[in-house]
């Protein structure tokens, strides 16, 4: 029976309610007895061969016949009014097809603005013009021939400078606006009554995504359909963005993302490059490619906000009694911020909490979601501060956390957790790292000038996913299977785990399932963000496979003249009392041609909080003379529900830890305050970890299905592993040296400064 149900979803720290049309019933939780043929098995990626042989086609690889190349002219000024644009010389260049800019481009609503080329450009790298030409070099050459008359305006790029009185005010209501707060209990009183308190300020620098594949799109218009290939985390989001910008109906836009080289949150929706490519494609009736360079990627494709965070914590009788946390985030030209106080609000059971976060506008590129946005920055501050409090109170930091990590309810909504094993994560992680080897004040390192230490930190995050998400399973007459689902594989291994779920439930071999995703022509699905893909799409896939299996068994009952109850579908064959009939043989006897199973994601319970939890433990050595940090070992123990594929899951964790190490030690966007220019605009200046920076990473899963979450019992895993890494490392460094570095990344210079402050430098 078709009906409407209420659902509660959490997306990156924000909880919302939705209404979903459903039909039929959800499946009971999948069995977890080790007997599943696919779920819980390590499988290499089903597209591994395609990827490593270079056959997998990414957006950047797409060269269509007669394709034009678009390139974007970007503002060299941090803030300026575009008064006049002269494109005569550019247009006269042979091979140039056209130029778009604010004086000739129709209104194309984009993220709150009604144009893509603004009169006032507000950061170095903001889009001013776009050129389409027959080839990329000509387009680039044409950019240099465009003359723009800028009226320069005063700017501010630095977070703390923007907070001050002398900074130019960029919005009518100033640079600073409140974006969220939470209060429970009475922190003032609790702090007054505390035995010990710490009052500390933390800073985190701007981190850039730098996915392997830069942002980009190829658009093709044939007079009826606009087809866009894009490196995106959400084909349907790009479709919506194009619908709004270009006023085309959904039915005439198709967005495809077959393979992509990562996004980390920066590719959640339509980009100006998509609109540029589409506008040119519609004007010229040709394919148009607009792909960003690495430098453009680091200017105008999003970032993790720099933050300034103040925390006051109090403890009494060896327990945390109060946390105050105020945070300011540099949103650049972004219209929102990711909330760094999220972990403070929810991670621990503490009676008195008071948090507030502020958005600070500056003349820098917009923030965008970045793998656990807000929580990475917030966890660095909170989890460092908890260690500082533990030290002040003379309590082992893990013991202190244990006292507050057992709560069964979300402290904000009061809803019970669908499941929670944070204490188990502590137990597993502590054992694996050898927490009992940890000594207050650290131990001697492998050389006289080296100190060794152990630290840990924990994490909370959503990842329960939710509706809407849809899947279909087509079984062809030969018994081969096509699974179509509304999602895209952004590099996480989605194709593989969905194929496993389908094969498992349907009863066919993994190799028999072909997965068709990343196409808005198929059923709808959510953004691959917020660690919600598996928990949203997986249950729909299971239901679709179940639906198909029921139909196949019904058909087989007729063909084999055996009661359905006596039939099973196993490894691609109908099994009846020991006799195996291949599926193709059964289907060959009827003329249906295709069996179609359908599945949807059923709603979440509206009285439960679905969360993921984990803890990470770091062991480091610190050279106290040069300030170098050597991360030797990271242990990650995670509670993310049931693990569908231990191999790809571990690989997700490793990736998150490595990106967390980058955030902790070397990744930092550096901007020249006077000119507003990004000085670390490519991979030479911006240091992501290399293989030599990667320590031993031990991954442990609690691996217990969250039966109240969804029919798979699985939750998301993309973001949890990056959240606690930096704090675990900073806590290990503090344990090793006695010096607390309160600014990530913990560069050599910052470590030395902290050592000097602690009086440890010789």
């Amino acid at each position, binding site marked *: 029976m078709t009906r409407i149900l209420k659902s509660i979803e959490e997306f990156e720290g924000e909880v919302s309610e939705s209404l979903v049309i459903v039909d039929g019933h959800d499946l009971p939780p999948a069995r977890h007895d080790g007997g599943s043929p696919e779920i819980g098995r390590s499988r290499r990626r089903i597209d591994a061969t395609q990827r490593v042989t270079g056959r997998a086609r990414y957006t950047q690889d797409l060269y269509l016949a007669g394709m034009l190349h678009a390139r974007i002219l970007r503002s060299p000024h941090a803030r300026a009014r575009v008064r006049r644009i002269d494109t005569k010389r550019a247009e006269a260049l042979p091979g140039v097809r056209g130029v778009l800019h604010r004086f000739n481009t129709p209104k194309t609503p984009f993220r709150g603005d009604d144009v893509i080329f603004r009169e006032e450009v507000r950061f170095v790298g903001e889009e001013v013009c776009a050129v389409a030409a027959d080839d990329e070099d000509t387009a680039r050459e044409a950019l240099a021939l465009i003359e723009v008359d800028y009226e320069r305006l005063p700017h501010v790029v630095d977070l703390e400078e923007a907070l001050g009185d002398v900074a130019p005010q960029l919005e009518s209501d100033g640079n600073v606006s409140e974006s969220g707060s939470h209060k429970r209990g009475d922190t003032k009183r609790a702090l007054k009554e505390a035995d010990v308190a710490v009052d500390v300020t933390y800073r985190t620098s701007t981190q850039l995504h730098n996915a392997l594949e830069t942002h980009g799109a190829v658009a093709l218009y044939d007079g009826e359909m606009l087809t866009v290939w894009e490196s995106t985390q959400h084909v349907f989001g790009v479709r919506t963005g194009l619908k709004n910008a270009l006023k085309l109906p959904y039915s005439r836009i198709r967005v495809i993302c077959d393979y992509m080289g990562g996004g980390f949150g920066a590719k959640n929706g339509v980009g100006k490059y998509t609109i540029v490519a589409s506008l040119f494609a519609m004007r010229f009736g040709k394919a148009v490619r607009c792909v960003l360079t690495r430098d453009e990627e680091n200017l105008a494709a999003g970032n993790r906000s720099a933050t300034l965070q103040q925390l006051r914590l109090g403890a009494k009788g060896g327990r945390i009694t109060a946390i105050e946390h105020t945070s300011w985030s540099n949103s650049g030209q972004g219209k929102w911020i990711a909330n760094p106080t999220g972990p403070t609000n929810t991670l621990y059971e503490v009676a008195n909490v008071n948090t507030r976060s502020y958005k600070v506008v500056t003349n820098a590129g917009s923030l965008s979601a970045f793998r656990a946005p807000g929580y990475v920055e917030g966890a660095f501050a909170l989890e460092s501060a908890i260690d500082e409090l533990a030290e002040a109170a003379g309590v082992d930091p893990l013991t202190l956390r244990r006292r507050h990590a057992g709560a069964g309810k979300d402290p904000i909504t009061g809803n019970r957790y669908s499941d929670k094993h944070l204490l188990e994560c502590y137990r597993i992680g502590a054992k694996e790292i050898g927490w009992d080897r940890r000594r207050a004040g650290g131990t001697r390192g492998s050389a006289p000038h080296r100190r060794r230490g152990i630290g840990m930190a924990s994490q909370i995050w959503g990842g329960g996913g939710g509706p809407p998400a849809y899947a279909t399973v087509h079984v062809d007459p030969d018994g081969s299977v096509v699974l179509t689902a509304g999602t895209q594989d952004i590099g996480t291994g989605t194709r593989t785990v969905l194929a496993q779920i389908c094969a498992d439930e349907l009863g066919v071999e993994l190799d028999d399932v072909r997965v068709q995703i990343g196409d808005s022509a198929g059923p709808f699905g959510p953004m691959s963000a917020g660690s919600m893909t598996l928990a949203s799409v997986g249950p729909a896939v299971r239901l679709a496979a179940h639906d198909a299996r029921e139909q196949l068994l019904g058909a087989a009952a007729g063909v084999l003249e055996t009661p359905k109850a006596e039939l099973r579908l196993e490894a691609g064959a109908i099994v009846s009392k020991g006799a195996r009939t291949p599926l193709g043989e059964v289907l060959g006897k009827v003329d249906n041609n295709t069996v179609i199973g359908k599945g949807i994601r059923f709603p979440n319970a509206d009285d439960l909080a679905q969360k993921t939890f984990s803890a990470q433990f770091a062991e480091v050595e610190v050279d106290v003379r040069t300030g170098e940090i050597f991360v030797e070992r990271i242990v990650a123990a995670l509670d993310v529900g049931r693990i569908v594929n231990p191999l790809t899951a571990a690989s997700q964790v490793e990736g998150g830890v490595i990106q967390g190490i980058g955030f902790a030690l070397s990744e930092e966007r550096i901007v020249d305050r006077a000119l507003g220019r990004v000085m670390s605009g490519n991979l030479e200046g911006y*240091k992501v970890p*290399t293989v030599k920076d990667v320590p031993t990473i031990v991954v442990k899963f609690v691996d217990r299905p969250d039966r109240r979450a969804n029919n798979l019992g699985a939750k998301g895993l993309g973001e949890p592993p990056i959240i606690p890494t930096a704090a675990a490392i900073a806590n290990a460094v503090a344990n090793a040296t006695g010096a607390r570095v309160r600014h990530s990344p913990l560069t050599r210079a910052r470590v030395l400064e902290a050592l000097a402050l602690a009086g440890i430098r010789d």
Partner: protein
Amino acid sequence: MTVLAGGTDLMVELNFGRRRPEHIVAIDRVGELAGIERNGHVRMGAGVTYTRMLADAGSQALAEAARTIGSPQIRNAGTIGGNLGTASPAGDTLPVLAALEATVVLRSKAGERRVPFADYMTGPKKSVRRADELIVAAEWDEAGPAQTYMFVSTRNAMAISIAGLAMVVDRARKRVGIGLGSCGPTIIRPADAEGFARGLFDEAGWERPHRPSESAAKELGRLVAAAARPIDDVRGTAAYRRHALAVMGARALSRVAQIA
């Protein structure tokens, strides 16, 4: 005329639009430039790659410097001639060549000239090489095993050094050479530090390994740092560079003094 050997610097310049040469001549397959001759004296052809320097190529410090450079792909392409041609203060082989008191061999239609490394670099990415000259080799006297190269950077691999230091103690010739990278407009030779180190070896005996006192190592570091002329940039501050040099100076001395 622009020549291309490994292209690890030139291609960056081209890709960033900083240079648009009319003609480029690739010299990476000129066999005459790729030889290494050794007989107490080393003549290393300009086309020798970093990968080849990793193996014994006439200087332990040079091998250590080569190991710090880039990724395997970069080490397979980049050459000592390219490092000399670019003449960046951050060129990792250059502090070693300075410490070895190497000679740069330049050739043009007018003939060959031999320039002591100390006279070769004149500023950041500037040298005495004339536009019509090709770097054909670097030469130096083999100095024995007491030598090392150290650097600090912003991460553990594939990163331009924030500060680099080469130290060569030629026990046979009773000579100490120190070269400092990334801490001035050219590679710096800290004369006072070298003099101080010579004094230490005079005292301890040139032929024997010894363990320098902590205070001596520290003093050497101080003299090294005092000679540097670092600047603040994206990679690090002048203060950090100076500090790092002091630490590396002390460590380098402790390491090489124990090698004989």
